[in-house]
């Protein structure tokens, strides 16, 4: 039928309505005008629908057919509700439309049309009252523009704006937006104002050198020039003073972006004061570790030389590794105490770790709390190690019944002294050695140097006796 109308085969169209049949002329001069109008409307990209006074469709163009997914043949003569349902964005809009139509004969606005298949369309409509020759309302003409896509895009932009604005607002880096032309700040995030102690208003309109980020205007200019060449510049280490005078080390990353045709510079400013401090600390620690390692190598070298010089070459490896064991035990203690001195009892236990089952029975340890200096701990530790080695090889721990008493005290004299003793009893009969071994040097001269004291070694027949005395200020931490 529609094809017949469009191709001009029909002369008139009669539409049944509640008010009786309506006749639409399709031929003649009027018809020619109508046809021409129809042709024009068909070309319009907006949907055009005409309703009669009963709200029935009397015309719809191609765009309307496409928009509502309905053929003209199925729509003509049907009520509006068979094509779409209107929903309102704001409840008051519906009444506003009625008022506008009544008072002005037209309404423009935005609402939602829900198609028969349930698809919702965001539309902008212009609705005009159609009047007969006499001026009586004969219906309405609606021109409907589909803004669903645009609306969706706007919503996405809004979500994106909220999301990225939140990043800007809550970032724990300072962010500045600059105009590359004037090099002036056009925006600053809250963290930036916090870092500098300036308000946002104080920052906007300033150049970077004015907030202390660069030395002078030339440096600010240079950054912008670099940026135009490379799009990104990075400054690892810039000093920055806050308004309150607080010194910070900052890292600045500047990017040149295109913002919808307009170039902008974004500067991210990160406070790296803490990171710098911890890097410095790590560097210091590494140097310290290196120093200690080399020192320890020197100690091992000295022990190896002495071990080889004093003693039987056949047992060199065994004696050396035994002494390295002792050094390792001492090292553990020093590290555990952060090189701040060592408790005497800890030192004794560490050097006698091999005999811990005998402690309390054959090895008696007694003394008050006392903290040795690092040097004293190293010297006394080595001496204890040599004494223990000697005791288990030749002395009181070489049989099943001998005893060792290890005791220390601090004398309450005008010049207080630290006294320490190692007394052996019940071992094999002792004879003074004919030549001085390295062990004897360690428990004698070496420990004396370490504590600036005196070590007395007596080879009693019933067991070795070793007595060390030193001024408290030299031995104790």
């Amino acid at each position, binding site marked *: 039928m529609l094809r017949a109308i469009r191709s001009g085969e029909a002369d008139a169209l009669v539409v049944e309505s509640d008010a009786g049949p309506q006749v639409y002329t399709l031929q003649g001069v009027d018809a020619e005008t109508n046809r021409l109008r129809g042709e024009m409307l068909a070309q319009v990209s907006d949907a055009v629908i005409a309703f009669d006074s009963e709200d029935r469709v009397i015309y719809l163009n191609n765009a309307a057919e496409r928009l509502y997914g309905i053929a003209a043949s199925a729509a003509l003569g049907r009520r509006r509700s068979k094509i779409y349902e209107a929903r309102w964005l704001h409840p008051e809009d519906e009444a506003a439309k009625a008022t506008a139509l009544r008072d002005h004969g037209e309404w423009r606005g935005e609402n939602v049309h829900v198609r028969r298949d349930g698809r919702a369309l965001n539309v902008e409509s212009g609705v005009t009252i159609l009047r007969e020759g006499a001026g009586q309302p004969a219906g309405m003409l609606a021109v409907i523009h589909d803004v669903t896509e645009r609306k969706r895009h706007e919503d996405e932009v809004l979500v994106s704006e909220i999301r990225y604005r939140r990043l800007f607002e809550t970032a724990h880096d300072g962010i500045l937006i600059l105009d590359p032309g004037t090099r002036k700040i056009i925006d600053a995030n809250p963290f930036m104002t916090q870092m500098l102690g300036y308000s946002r208003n104080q920052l906007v309109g300033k150049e970077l050198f004015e907030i202390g980020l660069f030395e002078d205007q030339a440096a600010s200019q240079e950054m912008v020039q670099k940026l135009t060449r490379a799009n990104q510049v990075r400054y690892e280490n810039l000093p920055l003073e806050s308004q309150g005078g607080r010194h910070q080390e900052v890292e600045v990353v500047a990017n040149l972006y295109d913002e919808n045709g307009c170039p902008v510079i974004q500067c991210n400013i990160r406070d790296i004061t803490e990171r710098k401090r911890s890097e410095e600390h790590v560097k210091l620690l590494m*140097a310290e570790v*290196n*120093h*200690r*390692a*080399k*020192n320890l*190598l*020197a*100690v*091992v*070298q*000295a*022990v190896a*030389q*002495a071990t080889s*010089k004093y003693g039987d070459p056949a047992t060199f490896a065994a004696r050396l590794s035994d002494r390295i064991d002792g050094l390792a035990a001492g090292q553990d203690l020093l590290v555990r105490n952060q*090189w701040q001195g060592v408790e005497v009892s800890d030192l004794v236990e560490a050097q006698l770790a091999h005999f811990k089952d005998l402690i309390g029975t054959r090895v008696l340890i007694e003394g008050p709390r006392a903290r040795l*200096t*690092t*040097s004293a701990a*190293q*010297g006394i530790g*080595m001496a204890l190690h040599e004494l223990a080695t000697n005791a288990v090889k030749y002395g009181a721990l070489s049989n099943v019944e001998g005893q060792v008493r290890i005791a220390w005290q601090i004398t309450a004299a005008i010049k207080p002294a630290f006294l320490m003793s190692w007394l052996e009893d019940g071992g094999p009969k002792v004879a003074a050695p004919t030549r001085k071994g390295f062990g004897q*040097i*360690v428990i004698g*001269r*070496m*420990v004396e*140097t*370490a504590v*600036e004291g005196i070590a007395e070694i007596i080879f009693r027949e019933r067991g070795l006796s070793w007595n060390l005395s030193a001024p408290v200020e*030299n031995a104790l931490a």
Partner: protein
Amino acid sequence: MEFERAGGECVSMNRVGNNDEPPLTAMFNNQHRRVLIVEDEPILAFALEELLIEAEFEIVGVATRLEKALAFIESGVCDAAILDANLAGVSAGPAALALAARGLPFLILSGYSPDQLSNAFAGAPCLQKPCKPERLVAALRAILPAQ
């Protein structure tokens, strides 16, 4: 042991470095060469003492603490000193300054590399631990005025 010479040696060794060092005791008159050893590690102090006595130096004292080192220097008994840069966490810098003030030569023996050392030690030859005994003896001879 050529590879030991290649790395880790202190730059200042260049002026005393010499691959054909004389035997420790020969051809060198160490008489009245009184040396102070400042070293907090007892075993190292002992090893230095042994080494220098063997090389016919006279050891006037071993100090493991800065105060003791300063006392030795002030008493004027030494002609030269070997300084460990760090004495149980205390810098031996004041001892270096005291020696320099008296015009006494000294060398630094340290686990630290020269660039890590305080300015107080600037100008003094610096040997890194661990150091080969003959290098140490040669360096010590080099800083003492010829007799």
